[in-house]
């Protein structure tokens, strides 16, 4: 993998993490709003989806580390 391709992949992964994080922030505020309004139905699905989003972010972070380590070895 060339250096520029590695950087592009890392930048893309960071952008994807940022998008997932924005979705997660919205999910938290919507869940809190529902909870304070006395509605408990969306709480469990929201927690599951938030867990999935966190897992996706973690996966992308591991991807970034792997690409970064490979770039370090090649240079």
């Amino acid at each position, binding site marked *: 993998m060339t250096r520029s391709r590695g950087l592009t992949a890392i930048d893309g992964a960071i952008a994807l993490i940022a998008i997932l994080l924005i979705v*997660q922030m919205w999910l938290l505020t919507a869940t*809190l709003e529902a909870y304070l309004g006395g509605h408990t139905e969306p709480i469990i699905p929201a927690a599951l989806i938030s867990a999935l989003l966190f897992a996706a972010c973690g996966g992308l972070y591991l991807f970034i580390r792997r690409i970064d380590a490979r770039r370090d070895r090649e240079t």
Partner: protein
Amino acid sequence: MKKTESSQAPLWRDEFAIDVATDSYVTRRQFSKFLVLTSLGMFAGNLWILVKSWFRSSPRFEPQPLGIVDELAVGDVKLFSYPTQEDPCILIRTGIDQFVAYSQKCTHLSCAVYYAKQENRLECPCHEGYFSVEDGSVLQGPPPRRLPRVVLQRDGDNLTATGVEL
């Protein structure tokens, strides 16, 4: 070989050896780690809400007499507070034998809703949120949820509030 005066590092460099630009440089890996930790924080927030909802006890409502049925003509309203003094509610007589009561706090920003008799709906004057008189559902505007409905019990000529349905 002796260095010239200009090529030597200034004396203050020995005392302030840290370069600010280098020290505050954030690598992509550090930045992505920060984002993932923030994501963990969001997940922890969702988990906290989940745990709080498990331990939240359901509210208990004491019956509260609202008065005699004949005090209100059809289309008239009566304001009262239920279940506490900080919870304003509105009672509407919609028919000869039909009464409905809702929380008076708009579900948008808690402005007091009023009964618009001609349009037969509840209206919030702040942002023009309209609610149905039949079930309190949102007809128009920014309110995200229907109005909480006060459960009424009629015993002869007496009307009593017995609970609140969110």
